[in-house]
């Protein structure tokens, strides 16, 4: 079970990482490094969030992009209505994602897992329709966001965004690690292995599934909230880009779904492959590459990178 030591160690680790990243990026002193860091952390947060429902409980969410866009558009709406600062928008984006997860979950999670998957698959189409028809947030032509000048301790606003995204990703990792070690995680694992048996043994299956869907949606919404400030412009096509959905799924499945470390490994691997492919070939070629790597891992390495490591270690121990 998790106690004080888990939170102390986890927070300390996250803080150390934050300081190292901040110092390293400041040393590079190039805005491109901040942009790159932002993208990697954003995908890391999305992947960890997807894994809470997909990996731990075994319910596939094909709508990560929609949850992400809900967070981004929450920022646009709040910024226009009340000119709230970004950290509050991040919380609001989290609420938007959580609400979406709770609604989708309560309508479909009573049934077999495929029905949840199918509904999330068409979620992004309908959410995009709503946004396109909602002229307050710019409709199909999009909305501009005025980016503030640099805030006190940071040299540029991009640096602030990059570190904010790291904090979101680290929070996601802490939550995921806590779930893994708590009775919630064991309950979700029982649901994944045999839902009927879990229910018979008294696991509150529906409540746990809804909790996982809500948490996962909240983190995806939070990860999407800074996007309008990052691009200083947001339109439906960029918010609902298909790359977010495929990456949120591919990263955990490539890295390994049993632990929060899997999505992080997947995000590092696929994130760097994509950046290289975008830089040297083209962005659609990089998407094709991600699709191929994803299908290869799904078919040939069902446990992901973590499973491959474990296999090697088991072979070494057997000798």
């Amino acid at each position, binding site marked *: 079970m998790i106690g004080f030591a888990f939170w102390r160690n986890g927070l300390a680790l996250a803080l150390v990482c934050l300081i190292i990243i901040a110092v390293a990026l400041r040393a590079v002193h190039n805005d491109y490094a901040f942009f790159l860091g932002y993208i990697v952390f954003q995908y890391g947060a999305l992947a960890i969030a997807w894994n809470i429902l997909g990996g731990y409980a075994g319910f*596939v969410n*094909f709508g990560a992009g929609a949850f992400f866009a809900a967070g981004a558009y929450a920022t646009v709406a709040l910024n226009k209505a009340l000119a709230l600062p970004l950290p509050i928008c991040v919380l609001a984006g989290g609420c938007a994602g959580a609400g979406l997860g709770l609604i989708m979950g309560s309508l*479909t999670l009573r*049934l077999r897992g495929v*029905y949840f998957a199918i509904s999330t698959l*068409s979620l*992004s189409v309908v959410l995009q329709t709503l946004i396109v028809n909602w002229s307050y947030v710019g409709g199909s032509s999009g909305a501009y966001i005025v980016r503030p000048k640099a805030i006190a301790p940071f040299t540029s606003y991009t640096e602030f965004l990059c570190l904010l995204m790291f904090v979101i990703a680290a929070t996601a990792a802490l939550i995921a690690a806590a779930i893994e070690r708590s009775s919630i995680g064991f309950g979700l694992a029982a649901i994944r292995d045999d839902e009927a048996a879990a229910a018979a043994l008294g696991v509150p299956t529906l409540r746990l599934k809804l909790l996982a869907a809500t948490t996962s949606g909240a983190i995806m919404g939070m990860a999407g909230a800074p996007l309008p400030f990052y691009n200083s412009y947001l339109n439906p096509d960029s918010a609902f880009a298909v790359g977010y959905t*495929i990456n949120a799924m591919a990263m955990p499945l490539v890295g390994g779904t049993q632990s929060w470390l899997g999505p992080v490994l997947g995000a590092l691997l696929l994130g760097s492959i994509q950046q290289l492919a975008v830089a040297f070939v083209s962005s659609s070629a990089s998407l094709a590459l991600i699709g191929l790597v994803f299908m290869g891992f*799904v078919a040939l390495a069902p446990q992901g990178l973590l499973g491959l490591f474990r296999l090697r270690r088991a072979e070494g121990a057997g000798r």
Partner: protein
Amino acid sequence: MNLDPVLIVNACASGLLLGAFYAMAAAGLAISFGLLDIVNIAHPALMVAAAFVVAALTGGTALDPLLASLLIAPLFALFGAGLYRLYHFFFERRGDESIRGLAFFFGLMFLIEVSLLLLWGVDQQYANALYSSGVLSVGKVDFPLRMLVPALCALATFATLSAFLKLTFVGRAISAVAQDREALRLMGIDPVRIKTIAFALSVGLAALAGGALIVIQPVDSSSAQIFVGRLFAIVIMGGLGSLPGTMIAGLLFGVIEDLTATLIGPSWSPAVAFGLLLGFLALRPRGLFGAPP
């Protein structure tokens, strides 16, 4: 809101024509998802890919798009057979359908979309047929030929398919594999072979639907996304794997969607699929005519 009766009757008529096409597009999915329990979410993407191939085949020649789709359907069926064997080998055999099997078909859908984008670019593709323009008017109700001809072909396909499933040995074995695999094995039939044939049939139907699609409307590489919600909503409304149910659900769906487009606005029609899908899942997951669970 415009409540002119002529307008509403016209919307219902074109909705029925559109619905017949939807039913045909959903028929293949009713076989794979409803009867075989293979959640082929790449089905709409295969249909759109077929539409692209048909557009390319008919572009330079005077070939009819619907005829072209009949010509490429066997190739798609062959691809479907291979696809099922792959799926069976990697996922079904291991009992690993739920997450990884779904992810496999999602990856396939994604790869098809990206490949279409890489091969043809972002431009819309269309095909011309003798009946692309022209209208059959009955009183004040108009039936555009580019909708009427695919709808009639869809009805013919449906009739052939129903007869095949009811009357032939293989067809009845396909219905049987949905009910009891083991009994089929005891009767000396290999369920994997039957499922291969059935899945090939379903992908072949996707190719036929692609031919009808390109006659009805131009397509681009991302057209499949909107069909996912539509086709699954129809299959679930139709009660998973019942062909008459799928037909009625398709017609109903087409009418509802066209009425929404006419009365509220065309930009709202994608919301219909999602609303019906979620509504049925929440309130009546066995569909309109399905047996109680």
